């Protein structure tokens, strides 16, 4: 069983001397201009424990230090070398185009929660303190206005950040107090500028708590190889 960390360019470069999951040595499978970095396992780690997630992550990050990488999600695996080579050959053009898109770029994650405290985001209220609406009409109009307020704040934070990014993806909010959850594809040299922008936005929005993380491999900007299998018979790398 082959565990895939990422698909890279520069197959001429030596592999980093770093161990993969379960201390397995890193190996690679090459197809023309593409290189898949892998480790071989008899029994693959099936449970995504936190330390395994970090091992996978750090291998991908190490690869990113010297090449363009399409990061595979944790749990991406194929049966054998033939299957992997088939994926690389069949999807070569798409992978090369995707590599061009992420080369020299990183992903930054931003999450914004509604904060009840001013400025430092020291407390986040689950629900804003409001008096209960007197009528059904007030209830619905209140919800409507609340929704608009959230959309406005989210846009006020997202738009300037998206302007600094090559691309961005917004994910749906996961809780009532979450205002924004988004990923930004940023040039590696643009991280500092992005961070300053986040700082300015935090100052401008004391009612929100902004968390910015990264730099990450460009997970959100690489098509899921399991979805690349839209055409029947196309070989794929299966994620868990």
């Amino acid at each position: 069983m082959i565990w895939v960390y990422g698909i890279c360019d520069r197959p001429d470069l030596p592999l980093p001397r770093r161990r993969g999951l379960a201390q397995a040595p890193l190996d690679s499978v090459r197809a023309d201009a593409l290189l898949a970095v892998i480790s071989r396992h008899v029994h693959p780690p099936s449970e995504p424990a936190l330390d395994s997630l970090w091992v996978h992550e750090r291998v991908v990050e190490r690869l990113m230090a010297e090449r363009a990488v399409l990061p595979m999600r944790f749990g991406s695996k194929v049966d054998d070398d033939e299957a992997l080579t088939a994926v690389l050959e069949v999807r070569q053009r798409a992978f090369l185009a995707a590599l061009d898109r992420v080369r020299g770029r990183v992903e930054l994650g931003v999450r914004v929660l509604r904060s009840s405290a001013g400025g430092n985001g020291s407390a986040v209220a689950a629900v804003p303190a409001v008096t209960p609406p007197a009528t059904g009409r007030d209830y619905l109009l209140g919800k409507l206005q609340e929704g608009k307020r959230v959309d406005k704040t989210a846009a006020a934070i997202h738009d300037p950040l998206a302007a600094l990014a090559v691309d961005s993806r917004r994910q749906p909010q996961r809780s009532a107090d979450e205002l924004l959850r988004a990923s930004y594809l940023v040039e590696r040299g643009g991280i500092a500028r992005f961070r300053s922008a986040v700082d300015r936005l935090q100052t401008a929005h004391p009612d929100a708590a902004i968390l910015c993380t990264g730099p990450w491999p460009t997970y959100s900007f690489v098509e899921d190889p399991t979805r690349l299998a839209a055409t029947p018979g196309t070989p794929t790398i299966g994620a868990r």
Partner: protein
Amino acid sequence: MDSPADKLLNAPLDLDPFARDLRRLDDALTGRVRADPENVERGLAQLVLTIIELLRQIMERQAIRRVEAGGLDEATVERLGSTLMALESRMEELKQAFGIEDEELNLDLGPLGRLL
């Protein structure tokens, strides 16, 4: 050991609210159905309340959309609103009765993502 701390570029002083997701991640990683006798009632309540909450949210969003679009008479808006308001407060009572937090009212649908 590598730590995620070096991944924080900008962070508010209090990270706790953001850490709720870690608990969810932990639940997802170690997810087991709690079907032992002590937990089965609560587990079932959690499942049923999740489904009710899903329907409630869908109805509410639909109602808000219709109010926004206009064309509903005052009486209908009032009736819709008071029904949804009553449903919301009843949900709060049920959550309290079973000791269930908002974050627990969700289902992980695997590759489809989360229900709510």
